[in-house]
């Protein structure tokens, strides 16, 4: 049966419901929570702080380290084996590469900024949720950055291009499925992450990227509002020092 209507009633270019919050982990220097559908990510940022082992130090700038971790009970059925896996190491690496272009740590030589991303519940799109949460946590930690980073996945089920596939859509097996997580800088629309599972034609890829840009703008606004909401306080005015 052709997949012409999404099972949860969404439009093809519609994301799942998004909740974003900043400052959720008290002991971290910066933290954020990002939920899209039932995929939930918490990000905690520590630093800039001293980096050990010393051979990793860069005397010209600070470096960033990311850890992506799915909690054992987070999956859609089977218990996820705790600890780093081949998959989580790869996602940690691509997350790091997606956040690297925006952060500006030239004033912090020899230091590290650690980003821990924990997923308490996953329903596909977890690396995108992780990147969105991590970008907000970095901003909350006061790290100098030239833009926030926003990510969303696009894909194809049957003949239709969809935005933000959930697990049941990714797992359809009687039709061809492609899944493509994309991370962008919302201001300049530079692409900082693009991976793909499955196959898309050149035209389908172009169409998907147009839909992604729209979704990115929407999600970026939610991220910005969440960052500003931390400082809102009734009718007392905001003032400078």
């Amino acid at each position, binding site marked *: 049966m052709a997949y012409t209507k999404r099972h949860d009633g969404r439009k093809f270019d519609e994301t799942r419901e998004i909740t974003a919050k900043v400052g959720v982990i008290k002991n971290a220097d910066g933290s954020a929570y990002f939920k899209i559908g039932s995929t939930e990510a918490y990000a905690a940022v520590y*630093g800039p702080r001293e980096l050990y082992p010393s051979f990793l130090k860069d005397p010209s700038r600070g470096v960033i380290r990311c850890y992506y971790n799915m909690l054992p009970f987070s999956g859609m059925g089977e218990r996820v084996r705790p600890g780093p896996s081949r998959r989580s190491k790869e996602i940690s690496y691509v997350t790091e590469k997606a956040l690297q272009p925006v952060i500006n740590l030239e004033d*912090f030589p020899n230091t590290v900024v650690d980003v821990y991303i924990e997923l308490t519940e996953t329903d596909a799109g977890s690396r995108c949720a992780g990147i969105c949460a991590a970008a907000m946590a970095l901003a909350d930690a006061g790290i100098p950055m030239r833009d926030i980073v926003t990510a969303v996945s696009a894909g194809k089920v049957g003949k239709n291009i969809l935005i933000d596939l959930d697990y049941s859509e990714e797992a359809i097996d009687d039709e061809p499925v492609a899944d493509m997580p994309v991370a962008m800088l919302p*201001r300049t629309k530079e692409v900082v992450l693009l991976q793909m599972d499955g196959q898309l034609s050149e035209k389908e890829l172009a169409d998907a990227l147009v839909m992604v840009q729209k979704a990115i703008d929407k999600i970026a606004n939610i991220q910005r509002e969440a960052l500003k909401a931390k400082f809102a306080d009734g009718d007392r005015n905001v003032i400078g020092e």
Partner: protein
Amino acid sequence: MSDVEVQQATEVAPVEIKRIVVPGEVLAEGMDYLPGEGTFRDNNQIIANALGLMIIRGRLVKLIPLSGKYMPKRDDIVIGMVTDITSKGWIVDINCAYHAMITLRDATAEFIPKEADLSKYFNIGEYVLARIVKVTSQKLIDLSLRGPRLMKLTGGRLFEINPTKVPRVIGKKASMITMIKEKTACNVFVGQNGLIWLNGNEPKGEVLAVNAILKIERESHLSGLTEEIEKFLDEGLKNL
């Protein structure tokens, strides 16, 4: 407001706009504006480089950060904990990305003999109020305890706030901190690195002072803070 009134208002003081901005947000457009601290220029736009409070004063656009770690600066007074003792002096944790060093020369006014046991002067785990005398480009930090008020801190209470809120805790011409000191009868030292040490006659007064300072930290970006804190202290004193 009529047009005439608007004109008069702008003539009295330069136009000043303040608001909370997020990284990547466009703050101003056109070549008339100059990018200040915490901002950068991209073609004809001025963009925020961090989360903070934007202030446009005349042509200058600048950004005051509302979070972030302490950035060591020369002549700052900081509070730090001794973490190690070496042959050249003491290593101190000053609550930032880099550790600092007190050299033998700058440690005390008294003479330290060559074979002296350095832990007799400052031991591991002890806190000091010190001045930063040097910061290199690679952030090697030298501290000094030679100067008025600089000393080893014993007794009292020590707690931490975000270093970006320190100017608000001190206030204009130290107005805020003077008020807290007078009302709670506490002796307070505020390190630029966000560590605060205070000592009073009564534990209740100390707790009140701590709570007042934590309230300042939470509400530092809001207006009318001095009055709020004065009210808070007066109410607290009544319940003592």
